[in-house]
């Protein structure tokens, strides 16, 4: 892996200066992290805990990581029931300057801005069609790229 040092430093930084509501879990495999994301206070997700899985490609950060919710998937209009997330910065909007913590912050703000707990309108169709595929293989039409 070309950028091992960057990932190590990123991990160090996120562990030494923690951000509220974001906790790094299992990182025994440097290329596959598990991160816990807590629903922020005063939002629809307050008190809920979600788990994110980050898979880093060999040329991360030039290429975006694959990020999905595993286990308890939040009910949100941009999150499919299989854990895939419709968020521009994870795909076309990715920049190598972004990082695990900036992604977590974007996801937190995405959850916080929700006004109702609903699944995406095309959820069933999407989940059926992309069974077993990486979300990065899909072509995303962003419902909302303001977040």
């Amino acid at each position: 892996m070309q950028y091992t040092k960057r990932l190590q430093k990123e991990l160090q930084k996120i562990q030494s200066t923690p951000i509220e509501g974001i906790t790094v879990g299992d990182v025994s495999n440097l290329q596959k992290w598990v991160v816990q994301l807590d629903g922020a206070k005063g939002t629809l997700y307050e008190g809920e805990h979600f788990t994110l899985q980050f898979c880093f490609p060999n040329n991360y950060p030039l290429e975006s990581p694959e990020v999905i919710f595993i286990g308890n998937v939040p009910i949100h209009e941009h999150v499919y029931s299989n854990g895939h997330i419709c968020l521009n910065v994870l795909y076309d909007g990715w920049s190598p300057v972004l990082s695990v913590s900036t992604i977590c912050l974007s996801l937190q703000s995405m959850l916080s801005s929700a006004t109702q707990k609903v699944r995406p309108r095309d959820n069933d169709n999407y989940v059926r069609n992309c069974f077993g595929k990486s979300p990065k293989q899909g072509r995303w039409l962003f419902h909302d790229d303001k977040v």
Partner: protein
Amino acid sequence: MSKSNKKIQSPQSDSMDDTDGDIDYGSDEGGSDEEGDFDEDEDIEIEIEGEETDGIYDDTDLNRSKNSDFTSLSAEDLINSQQEQVIHCHEVLGVPLGIAGALLRAYAWDKEKLFLDFFDNRDKVIKKANVNLNDYVFHKGDAKKEMTCPVCYDDYNGGLMLSLSCKHFLCRRCMKDYLEVEIKDGPACLHAKCPYPKCNVLVDETLVKDIVDKKHYSTYSKFIARSFVDDNPRIKWCPAPDCGRAVYCPEGITDTVTCTCSCKFCFQCGKESHVPCSCSELVKWLKKEKDESETATWLTANTKDCPKCNRSIEKNGGCNHMTCSLCKYEFCWVCMEDWKDHSSGTGGYYKCNRYKPEELAGRTKETDRETARRELQKYMHYFKRYANHDKSQKLEKQLREKAQDKMKELTQINKYSSWVDVEYIQKAVQTLIDCRGSLKYTYVYGYYLDEGQEKNLFEYLQEDLERVTERLSEILESTPVEQFDRDEIIATTRSAATRLQHLLEGSSNGLVVERK
């Protein structure tokens, strides 16, 4: 998924080969003039290109229609021509080369419009193209300070960090890696911006050249040449597979053009030339063909049974005049009827090309099912003939290669005959291919033509052309080359060319019908 290193060969070529600048322009060298003794089995290529070719066709009226102003551009021509435009823009507008390129791309290579807008409102143009006229070089950071690269997280002396005018610094290696990944991802790299999220500063060509390695820059240049064609309404790729040339046409000319590779194509839709049928008719037809593909499969089979003795016969030439090898029955491959009825000798009373709707057996009303059946029958009539000419044309294109050998052979047999004496063969084959190409589309045209006087006239011309075309095909395919009757071939070629011209002029000048 990223597609990388696309050659600018042709838009549909998927070649991944990325040898620097090694684009095959279709070599012009090696036109072997010497008539030495050579092995007969040896593949001898006789290349006639450029002026020579023009000379040969000069007296064919077909190739000299009103649109002789177009220019065929090789891959090399494209790069040169694109660079000339950039240099011209750089000189007239007084902007750096990299910026000139970015401006031209932002204006889809419409130089005149760019110049007008630039002199009218320079700031607007610059904003539109996301460039900065006063600040278009890489900036270095402060050499007295340490800086952390936001991509690799390593610390560097500021003097080793780079940024665009936005002062978003990256280390040199990360900037290089970033741009090379963009280039690998495809032609969108022409619009590569500063890697910072939401920063819109464009990385222009000069900067790309400055930082990426040679191999990536060469890919990038090919994307530029491709955009020069793809975004430019006056240049179109030749649709012939593996040709890689493009054709430039000045404003106002939008009908059939001919590439140096001899491919004729429609400048409007970019598809193989489809006169006399219109682009929109062709689109409709191709859609129908797709919808009816199942019926079409058995209609276009390569093997049919002889109508007399039922022996299975495979078609391996373009000519539709078939003779059964067993019972010697001569028939027409298209309608399977006796060939005698097709020849001019009998007055050609049987009209193979015409669709005769079934008689309505005294009834005036037909059911929906009958209408559908009739409609399908009509379509099949036209499709069968369309597909047949298409297949014949493909086989006759192979004949074109063989013709080269035959011509060589002829100059061999008779030491006194020169190239000029045999070039009539090449002309004959090319005329045959042209006639086939148009005959194919006359069936699309005919399918959409309303019944009436005009259609009768059109079918008369079509039939006439069809007969001469079959005759020409037969002579060229069935006669051994040493028995070629030069005068007969020349006469038949002329006759076919004239008929083709009549048919095309007739249909385009509205002699047949007023086209919308």
